[in-house]
């Protein structure tokens, strides 16, 4: 028998996977944009590619469009993976497995805040600033900081996932197989159920 592997709900894997593609894409193209136009804190020998700014904007826009859906999932169905009412108490059990899992939950929660900060500061910028050589905007500095925060957070997120569940947990979020009860064919029924539960008995 194959060693057992943690199972992640299909909806989580889809939303989390798309989100990861958009965010990691935005991080890479964001660096290239900085490299093409700015470079005050150092450069890599990347080709100067002016269009990279709008490619970065596209990744950022997709991340912003997906964020409410991913956040809705994480704060509701996925709430067990985020901070809990007893998070502070659990933090005193230093070194125990629950301590590590609590740190992992804190990291997941901070991921959502860091991503919000990144897409928000990006949306406050004008695409004209960099081509016009205007680097002295507060939102541009905040957006650069958000980029560094995002890299830091992803590193910690990967380290925490590796610490609490090892390679098998890391791979579980990338797995493509799903259980029959998790099949997308059942989703429209779930949504109908949820709507009828939700609006049952609400006064007209």
């Amino acid at each position: 028998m194959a060693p057992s592997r943690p199972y992640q709900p299909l909806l989580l894997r889809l939303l989390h996977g798309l989100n990861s593609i958009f965010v990691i894409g935005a991080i890479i193209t964001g660096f290239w944009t900085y490299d093409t136009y700015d470079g005050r804190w150092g450069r890599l020998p990347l080709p100067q590619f002016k269009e990279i700014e709008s490619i970065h904007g596209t990744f950022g826009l997709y991340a912003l469009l997906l964020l409410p859906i991913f956040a809705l999932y994480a704060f509701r169905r996925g709430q067990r993976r985020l901070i809990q009412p007893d998070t502070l108490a659990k933090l005193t059990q230093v070194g125990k497995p629950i301590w590590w899992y609590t740190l992992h939950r804190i990291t997941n929660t901070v991921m959502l805040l860091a991503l919000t900060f990144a897409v928000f500061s990006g949306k406050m910028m004008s695409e004209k600033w960099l081509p016009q050589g205007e680097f002295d905007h507060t939102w541009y500095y905040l957006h650069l900081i958000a980029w560094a925060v995002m890299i830091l957070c992803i590193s910690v997120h990967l380290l925490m996932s590796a610490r609490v569940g090892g390679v098998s947990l890391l791979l579980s979020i990338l797995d493509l197989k799903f259980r029959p009860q998790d099949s997308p064919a059942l989703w429209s029924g779930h949504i109908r159920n949820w709507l009828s539960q939700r609006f049952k008995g609400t006064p007209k």
Partner: protein
Amino acid sequence: MKQNLALTIIEIIVFISIIAAWIIPLLPKLEPEPNTGSLILSAPGAVWLIPVAAKQNS
């Protein structure tokens, strides 16, 4: 489930930011943009544009 107050506050921050990210760029700027010759059809815009247009035509 016990009330998860901290998480609720974070959720509100995330969703308010997402909404604000769409709305804030649509708000009119406090200072009027330098005249680029574009037609603004609102009443105050028209009042401001008529002398500009007259000047450009002369």
